């Protein structure tokens, strides 16, 4: 018997009902244990040690001496409030400057469109720690715009303003990309119909395009909000003495104050769950004023000059707020490569700091790159294996209401701040929970599996939804058992989708800071190393590490774009 026939025979056996049930069970078990278990179990853990939590958060005996027993609770409240304020402002700015850009990219043709399209994605390729650093250098140091304006220091000091600018920069590509896709999915003929019915372009957008993209717009805004709420890596660098909720988690964790960290993580998980629910159920009930018309005003807004002004402002915002600040790190590194551009002292240059200084930064960087790659590769590989059957389970099984629940579970790591997520893994697997694993390399891998899971499952689900079931039916009628169909028909047509999902997860893992920092033990990934070097004021060396990391991510993302085609 040839091996081919043997293979098909094995596949026939494995396609049996029993095996497919077993597979589905394993897939769900994976989701429960490795993805949503830790963040959900945090409620249980906090409840179990409520006494301790209560004491440290609300009635600390030490602070009670000065009449401040609830000091930590106050800090937590303030941190949460600040995070919310920042996230709200960031989302508002993002939509304001991202929507026109998405519209321009989706609906207009102009020379250089591809270039703009690629440049918009640029911050995506920059891991957030590196992005935060680049923005800090641009806005907050004398090497950036401050020096250019002849100031003594940076234009803005570290703090909320810089956090907002940073968050806007890193979430901008995501919102533009998702809005662009949504706008492109709107049937342009509907817009044409409105034009022939007498509506000028602005009115068409308000009355036809906007209602059709509103749920996508809302979803994009909520995602943008949660991303800003949960961002850790870049925020660590630009926050200074200011702290947000995720930074508090990191701080408590580093000071080994486990109960308040657990309590705050629990609150963050609840908020994410709430936002996720909002994302799913509110989109439909979100009204827009489409039943009125202001013919004269809108005609005015549709004018040629006004459109040019809009385009000009969109591009200038993009260039000034996003493009230049996020790529400023390259300029900085070049200036500081051989030594200080001010004193000429070579010992302050990136080259000396990385390769010659006695503290051996180069070997540390090398080993952290290796760690980063190992973590990213393991997380990606495991998630592809676990995510592929999950995608089929979601799309192909008639799950009814269960589908909504599973979708929500899959999305949980998307909205939970990564530092809180990481901390929940620390509790779940560590001494407070299952007591199987301590902080270190393997825990980092587990956390990365957890937070990259939706980045794999979501695109794979979309790919599976796009598969033509007729092809599979054809293969079945030609005698192939389901698993053989999967190997011979489905997999080949999903190849690009799988690669895209893998690269997405890989780059996400490579750039993650917050989740790593709370579980890392002695292992270091590159973003963590960057944060530490920035904190120890080895700025040129940090810039070098950033540029290296960006180069790697950029290469991967370029491959991604190539795989997916230009559009």
């Amino acid at each position, binding site marked *: 018997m040839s091996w081919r026939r043997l293979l098909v025979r094995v596949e026939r056996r494995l396609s049996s009902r029993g095996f497919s049930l077993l597979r589905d069970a394993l897939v769900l078990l994976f989701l429960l244990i490795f993805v949503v278990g830790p963040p959900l179990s945090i409620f249980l853990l906090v409840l179990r040690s409520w006494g301790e939590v209560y004491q440290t958060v609300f009635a600390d005996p030490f602070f009670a001496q000065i009449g401040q027993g609830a000091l930590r609770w106050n800090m937590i409240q303030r941190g949460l409030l600040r995070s919310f304020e920042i996230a709200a402002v960031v989302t508002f700015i993002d939509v304001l400057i991202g929507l026109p850009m998405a519209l321009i990219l989706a609906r207009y043709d102009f020379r250089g469109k591809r270039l703009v399209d690629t440049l918009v994605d640029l911050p995506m390729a920059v891991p957030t720690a590196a992005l935060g650093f680049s923005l800090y250098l641009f806005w907050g140091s004398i090497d950036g715009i401050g020096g250019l304006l002849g100031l003594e220091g940076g234009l803005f000091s570290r703090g909320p303003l810089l956090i907002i600018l940073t968050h806007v920069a890193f979430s901008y590509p995501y919102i533009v990309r998702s809005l662009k896709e949504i706008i492109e999915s709107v*049937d342009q*003929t*509907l817009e*044409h*119909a*409105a*034009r*022939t*019915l*007498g*509506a*000028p372009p602005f*009115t068409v957008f308000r*009355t*036809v395009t906007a*209602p*059709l993209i509103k749920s996508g717009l809302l979803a994009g805004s909520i995602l943008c909000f949660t991303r800003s709420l949960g961002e850790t890596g870049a925020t660590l660098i630009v926050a200074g003495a200011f702290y947000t909720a995720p930074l508090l988690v990191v701080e408590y964790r580093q000071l080994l104050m486990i109960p308040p960290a657990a309590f705050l993580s629990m609150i963050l998980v609840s908020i994410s769950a709430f936002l996720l629910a909002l994302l799913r159920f509110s989109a439909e009930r979100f009204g827009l004023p*489409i*039943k*009125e*018309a*202001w*013919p*004269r005003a809108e005609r005015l807004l549709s004018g040629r000059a006004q459109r040019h002004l809009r385009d000009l402002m969109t591009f200038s915002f993009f260039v000034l707020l996003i493009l230049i600040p996020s790529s400023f790190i390259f300029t900085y590194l070049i200036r500081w490569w051989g030594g200080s551009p001010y004193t000429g002292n070579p010992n302050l240059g990136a080259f000396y700091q990385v390769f010659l200084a006695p503290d051996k930064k180069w070997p540390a960087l090398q080993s952290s790159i290796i760690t980063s790659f190992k973590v990213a590769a393991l997380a990606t590989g495991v998630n592809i294996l676990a995510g592929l059957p999950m995608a089929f389970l979601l799309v192909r099984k008639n799950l009814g209401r269960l589908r909504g629940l599973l979708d929500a579970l899959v999305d949980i790591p998307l909205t939970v701040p990564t530092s809180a997520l990481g901390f929940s893994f620390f509790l779940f697997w560590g001494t407070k929970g299952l007591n199987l694993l301590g902080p270190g390399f393997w825990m980092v891998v587990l956390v990365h599996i957890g937070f990259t899971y939706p980045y794999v499952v979501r695109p794979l689900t979309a790919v599976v939804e796009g598969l033509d079931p007729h092809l599979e039916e054809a293969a079945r009628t030609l005698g192939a058992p389901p698993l053989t169909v999967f190997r011979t028909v489905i997999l080949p047509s999903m190849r690009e989708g799988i690669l895209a999902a893998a690269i997405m997860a890989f780059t996400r893992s490579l750039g993650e800071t917050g989740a790593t920092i709370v579980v890392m033990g002695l292992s270091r990934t590159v973003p963590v190393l960057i944060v530490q070097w920035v904190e120890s004021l080895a700025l040129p060396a940090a810039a070098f590490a950033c540029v290296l990391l960006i180069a790697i991510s950029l290469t991967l993302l370029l491959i991604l774009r190539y795989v997916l085609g230009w559009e």
Partner: protein
Amino acid sequence: MPDVRLVNVTKRYGRVIAVEGLNLHVRDGEYFVLLGPSGCGKTTTLRIIAGLTKPDEGRVYIDGRDVSGIPPEDRNIGLVFQHFEIFPFMTVYENVAYSLMIQGLDEEEIERRVYQALEVAGLNEVADRYPEELGAPELQRCSIARALAKGSRLLLLDEPLGSLDPETRERFRFTLRSLVKGRGLTAIHVTHDQEEAMAIADRIAVFRRGRVLQVGTPMELYERPASIFVANFVGETNFLEGVIERSGERSLVRLRGDLLIEAGGSNLRAGSRVVIGVRRENILLEEGKAEGLNALPGRVIRAAFLGKIIRYRVELDNGDLVEVKQPTRLGRFFGEGERVYLIFPAEKVLVYPYPEDLRYELALR
């Protein structure tokens, strides 16, 4: 009162020419059809009139006014789309009211005019429904009502019946025409269905590869197709190859196998290669020859009795195949294998120069 004039209109997409040097005049109050196979430029022409597509060259006049630089919302037109393009998040009422709302009319005026349009389209019952609850015929009517409510005198229709089932499609032809005629509108209607065009149009422009081949009433196109493409596209026609023996008022054509037939007028030189066209329904099957008429001998190789008509396929003695569509009441039924004569008058025979570019399309040798 709107008439539409296109002068030297050209539109290219990269290297592909969609419309080339187009000149067309649609008269006021006319039901005008743009007819042609897919990709012939008819829809592009309609979109150019609507202002949705900018021509590379040429001018468009609506109502004597040059509208070339005017955006679609400011052209006085109503457009009915093939896939209706009903706004999915609005009710039927809101869809129809859309253009009136844009004009900033007051509620009462809007309501009056919407109900008027809904009445005409027979949609009163479903005014408050959403499009997803409606079937294609209702959506179609909604899209017409929406275009009518705007109050434009020029109605553009892009394959308006293309998304309907055949039965509804046939019924709607008359609805559409009487709607347009009853309100004194000018209509420009795009279709690839020649039967639809014949049934509905005052005049038809036949398109091919971005050019207009012929403009005329349905009768003119049928009786006197100016080119072999039109003869093939409008009606069902048999094409036979031959050589001109004699030309003039009546010409004489020698078919393969030395079969001689008399044909209509032609000024082609004697000896030139030609193709003659005879419509299927213009041929009669007889047992013997008939005086003063063409008679080609052959053998029935397929016969299908369809009730009102009988369809035959006859193999001529020279090997050419001819399709015949004969009303049942004219003559008897011939079975397969029977020898017959194909009888047809000379004036029903169209003569065209041999068309190299249509060889395969017309299954010529």
